[in-house]
């Protein structure tokens, strides 16, 4: 069998396997007598909110400017005070000269609002981004401390890395929120971002340390022999090369971070996971929502990994 038909054959096997798995999943769902309600899902991304517009006092409608989408209603109260209301034209419930009493509905204003899933994505994104940046910063600092000749710095960094890597993130979040958060009176978001950053920082530190140590000694020697200080050598020569080399494992770490941020739902931060749970407790659309949430995480992490691959290709010009 030549390599082309070999590839084609096994790709076909792959497709068949995936379809079979999806089919099995579908029939399993059928067996538990589950009613799929995918139509319920979109409203949790965006929904049309209707806000009733009511008269603020007893009075009379003096004039109506009927626009295409919005209508402006001028209203004069018995006290002589003048009001102007804007409502959606098709919901206009009053006519010129009509007497209104306090609380009478003039019409509605419709607006598109972000649903809990959208808000959850946003929370997950910004928490991951902020924690990622802080984690990278912590990682670089502690990574440099790790390789420092000063025993205090290197010892402290080693302790930090061991402590964080040796305990579960969930426990760290609880300690950060309930203990440190209480002592220092921290907001739950500060505690959450803090715990995630410290967690990511420990892993990044090890990646950075390995990256720096993988750069040949000759680079340092060349830079130093040109009269550069140790700091200049690190900033201009070693770090750029180390960061480039560690881009793939760093990307993996940030993708993990995005997924790990779902654990913050235990301290009442409404991220994507928590939003999903809350929707399920209202709708019981368990399967649809969890599948949607999983796909959303996939979109986020997939985009990030595409971005990193693109960056790698761009940085490969000097190879």
């Amino acid at each position, binding site marked *: 069998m030549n390599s082309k038909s070999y590839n084609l054959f096994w790709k076909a096997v792959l497709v068949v396997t995936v379809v079979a798995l999806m089919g099995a999943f579908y029939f399993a769902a059928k067996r538990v007598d589950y009613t799929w309600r995918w139509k319920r899902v979109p409203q949790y991304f965006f929904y049309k909110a209707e806000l009733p517009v009511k008269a603020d006092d007893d009075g009379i409608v003096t004039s109506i400017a009927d626009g295409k989408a919005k209508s402006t209603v001028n209203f004069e109260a018995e006290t002589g005070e003048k009001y102007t209301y804007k409502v959606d034209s098709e919901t206009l419930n009053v006519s010129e000269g009509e007497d209104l009493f306090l609380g009478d509905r003039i019409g509605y204003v419709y607006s598109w609002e972000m649903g809990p899933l959208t808000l959850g994505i946003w929370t997950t994104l910004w928490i991951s981004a902020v924690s990622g940046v802080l984690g990278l910063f912590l990682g670089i600092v502690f990574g440099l401390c790790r390789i420092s000749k000063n025993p205090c710095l290197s010892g402290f960094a080693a302790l930090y890395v061991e402590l964080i890597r040796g305990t579960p993130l969930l426990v760290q979040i609880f300690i950060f929120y309930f203990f440190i958060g209480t002592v220092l009176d921290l907001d739950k978001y500060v505690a959450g971002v803090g715990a995630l950053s410290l967690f990511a920082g420990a892993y990044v530190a090890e990646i950075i340390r390995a990256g720096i140590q993988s750069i040949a000694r000759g680079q340092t*020697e*060349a830079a130093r022999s040109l009269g550069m200080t140790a700091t200049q050598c690190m900033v201009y020569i070693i770090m750029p090369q180390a960061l480039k080399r560690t881009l793939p494992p760093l990307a993996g770490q940030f993708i993990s971070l995005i997924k790990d941020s779902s654990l913050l739902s235990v301290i009442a931060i409404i991220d994507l996971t928590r939003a999903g749970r809350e929707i399920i407790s209202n709708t019981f659309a368990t399967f649809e929502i969890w599948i949607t949430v999983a796909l959303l995480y996939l979109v986020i992490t997939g985009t990030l990994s595409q971005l990193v691959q693109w960056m790698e290709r761009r940085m490969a010009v000097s190879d």
Partner: protein
Amino acid sequence: MIKVRDLIKLFHADGSIVRAVDGVSTDVAKAEVVVVIGPSGSGKSTFLRCLNGLEPLNGGHIVIDGKDLADKKTDINVVRREVGMVFQQFNLFPHKTVLENLTLAQMKVRNRSKKEAEEKARTLLTKVGISEKESVYPSRLSGGQQQRVAIARALAMDPKIMLFDEPTSALDPEMVGEVLDVMKTLAREGMTMVVVTHEMGFAREVADRVLFMDEGKLVEEGTPEHFFTAPSHERTKLFLNQVL
């Protein structure tokens, strides 16, 4: 220009102490070209690396342009500005273009403007014969070209002394000539040079003085004529018999 007195450099290996450089004393005058030869493991590279402080000394003194490297108050970075070094493995910065390799230290260490640094860099690239490669990355260059860029990079700092650590040892044979030519030009222009090399032809042709080292000690020194025609030590004779 360089004064070396009783230089001692120790290495700790597997619990035992190796005297890599063991009591070497010599002087290098301005515009002198000194070639250091010796069998591998003789300490000649270590000796050279001591001269710009890449290896801290364990004893003795190295005085470069009036500054003693053994003195803790000496700022090693200031000394290194005046001492260029060329390595066996070139050690170009792979993430920088050829031009950036030449300008970075000029701007960061010598505080030159970008324009000034680039002008200097282009002059030097023309001098070593690779002006057309200024915007490529080092990985695109042959070994000989990389080494010439490395020489230009060291020269861009306007050093008073140039150290060469086996500059042709990692090159394919057909590229040795182009690098040696650049070095010969430098020597003719009056650069003070200390060269560790296995190129006996170069030593014979260019050196003002040859040092022969073995087991960390300076066994013999003299003019190339003396050295290659009438060496006085048995070790030197043995070594020359093997390499010539």
